[in-house]
């Protein structure tokens, strides 16, 4: 019974306030719990959060011009790029000095700027490389005149666009990687425009990646659902065998599987040979099943199938057979019982499987690379390509866009089904 006249603060036997005492007891337990998960936290932070943060940072990080030509950046602030006139001799003098400073033997950094600017404006790379040699030989001014007259490339120093670019990219933070990732660029007048149609690729690849991932996810549902159902309903002995078949792709090296697909799907592969042998196809009209979209589709469906089957299976396993029997006893046909009773109960499994497969699919790289040919590559293949060619900024921007999409999907899933309901086998 509650005592209505109790004092405002309860105290323990020794007189400490009860709340403080409780706090202390809980704090100790919290500290122990924290120490237990600390290794995991450190692990996640170092290997998961930090790389993602680094990636996100790199997608806007723009240190080259700012750190290698800092005085030029300052000097260009007072230059009005809208007039269409070249910067003053002072600016040319400053940049010439920084060219010399940035090309000291053993500390040559100036070409980094050229490479960076070349992403925005082809020709910057050779401009910087050639200019370095010439500028190092200039002992006196006028630098503007001398630089403009450098053979072949000098005309770029006379182009206002070059200076606009330098001024714009002098900002230590840039949106140009993100613009590029959306097939846009800043033109010579400083306006944001779409890239020429021939150069547009990322939006197209994002859309393809999404559409194909949707298709692959759908296929895994179509193929995985009956298998998961069998797994959940067959007697243990048969189910175990089937489970091994399902998990086999997990245990097989990707290279072995790739070879298997080539043997199966190749132009001279088993399927084509069979079709030709059976007379469905002429020898000249063999189907292109690999090194194209079909190849990616088939191979990825195969690889991702277990990720659909396992959550489905784990959900189906929890559905007692009595539900179906109850429905049947009440007069529902097998089909109706499945549609009205069984299927709705597996929706959380389908949701979890779909989320898992779709997220894995849109980030998939190795399979499209190996069997996708040209028409079957994904955005991740471009991301990898950008990493290889050293354009980490663009690679990070593309990665960041993909990352945001995944987060959005996750949020949508949470809204519709609820993350807490996710079962992953």
């Amino acid at each position: 019974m509650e005592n209505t006249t109790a004092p405002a603060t309860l105290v323990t036997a020794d007189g400490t306030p009860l709340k403080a005492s409780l706090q202390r007891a809980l704090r100790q337990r919290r500290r122990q719990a924290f120490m237990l998960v600390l290794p995991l936290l450190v692990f996640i932070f170092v290997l998961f959060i930090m790389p993602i943060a680094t990636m996100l940072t790199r997608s806007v990080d723009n240190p080259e011009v700012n750190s290698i030509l800092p005085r030029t950046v300052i000097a260009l602030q007072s230059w009005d790029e809208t007039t269409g006139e070249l910067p003053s001799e002072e600016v040319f003098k400053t940049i010439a000095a920084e060219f010399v400073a940035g090309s000291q033997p053993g500390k040559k950094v100036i070409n980094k700027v050229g490479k960076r600017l070349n992403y925005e404006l082809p020709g910057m790379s050779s401009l910087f490389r050639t200019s370095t040699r010439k500028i190092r030989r200039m002992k006196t001014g006028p630098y503007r005149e001398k630089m403009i007259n450098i053979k072949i490339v000098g005309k770029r120093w006379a182009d206002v666009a070059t200076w606009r670019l330098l001024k714009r990219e002098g900002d230590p933070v840039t949106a140009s990687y993100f613009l590029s990732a959306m097939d846009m660029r800043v033109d010579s007048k400083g306006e944001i425009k779409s890239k020429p149609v021939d150069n547009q690729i990322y939006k197209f690849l994002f859309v393809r990646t999404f559409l194909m991932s949707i298709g692959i996810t759908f296929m895994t549902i179509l193929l995985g659902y009956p298998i998961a159902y069998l797994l959940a309903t067959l007697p243990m002995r048969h189910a175990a065998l089937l489970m091994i078949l399902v998990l086999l792709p997990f245990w097989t090296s990707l290279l072995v599987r790739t070879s298997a697909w080539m043997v199966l799907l190749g132009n001279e592969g088993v399927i084509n040979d069979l079709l030709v042998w059976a007379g469905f196809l002429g020898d000249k009209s063999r189907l292109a099943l690999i090194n194209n979209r079909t190849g990616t589709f088939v191979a990825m469906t195969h690889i991702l199938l277990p990720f659909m089957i396992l959550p489905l299976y784990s959900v189906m396993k929890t559905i007692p057979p009595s539900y179906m029997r109850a429905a049947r006893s009440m007069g529902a046909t097998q089909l109706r019982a499945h549609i009205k009773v069984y299927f709705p109960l597996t929706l959380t499994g389908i949701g979890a499987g779909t989320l898992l497969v779709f997220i894995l699919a849109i980030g998939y790289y190795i399979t499209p690379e190996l069997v996708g040919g040209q028409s079957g590559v994904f955005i991740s293949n471009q991301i990898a390509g950008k990493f290889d060619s050293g354009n980490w900024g663009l690679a990070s921007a593309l990665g960041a866009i993909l990352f945001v999409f995944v987060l959005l999907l996750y949020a949508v899933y949470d809204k519709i089904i609820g993350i807490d309901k996710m079962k992953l086998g």
Partner: protein
Amino acid sequence: MKKLFTKGTALAALAVAGTLGAGVTAASAETTLTVVSWGGAYTASQQGAYHAPYMAANKGIKIVNDDSASGALAKLRAQVEAKNVTWDLVDMVASDAITACDDGLVEQINPDKDLAAAPDGTPASKDFFAGTLNPGGSNCFIPQIVYSTTFGYRTDKVKVAPTSVCDVFDLKKIPGKRALEKKPINNIEWALLCSGVPKDKLYEVMSTKEGIDKAFAKLDTIKSEVVWWTKGAQTPQLLSDGEVVIGSTYNGRLFAAIEEKKQPIAMLWDYQVFDLDGWVVPKGGKNTAEVMKYLKFATDTQRLADQAKFISYGPARYSSGPLVGKHGKLGIDMKPHMPTNAKNAKTQLLFNYEWWADNRASLDERFNAWLAK
């Protein structure tokens, strides 16, 4: 032999970039040099011509081969970013070396100080082929070999033997699949040559949008029949399997398929594109002094000539040419198989590093867009 980057590694390297602290130093009395190269026959040729004799002469040195040269630029970048450089010497194609040099990933080289002079006393800067020591204005690259990208075809599967690179673009004369490298370099040049652009106007035309449009239009005519390769070993394999009737690859790969494996393949040398492959020294390596000693030995006249005993690539020094002898195992004279041999080099192109450095990024983009659609 060129770039085929194992793409995941760059990402993985990025992931660990922040975590790896100080590197591990070989604590043994013996110095171990980690040399990164292309693996297979190529590494074997370096082992035979450079590593084995150097180790025999220097007891304290152990050379370990690392076959990760494909993708080396991305990996080297990750190592330098992480300040944990574990490689001592890296084999790269010239264009990657230029990038590595620009980005400050590799050491600068002073040829006359760091490299051996020719036997007749000609300094190294004069003995290496003109312009090969500082391609694209970089000073970090020591060429070993001149190799070429050229065509091989199935002698038993073509009705008429191709005689010109333009036969690749002629579906009537040479029907069937053809293998081309999955990048714009070389393909654009060949397409324009076969669209009637004279060789000396090539890069001028390529610098215009119309020129590039023209090249892609030409490529469009064979697009459906092209199998795109990314690794030098693919074309010989595709040829052997009969998946393609003609395809481009590095001349050494074709030599191996023709002379060592006795495949029914023949060379088409027309408009082969010369490129260079050589060494760069990673910045921040742990055995830089030892590596420089080794490099002086491994790039001297005799060593470069010796490499041709094992593989059909041409040594990059003038003085090495006359010393090229017979293949170590097959016993055949290697001179006619050198891309630099006068008979093979009647028509040829030299990879234009400067132009491609400027236009690679934007053309890659367009090329990828063209491929994907």
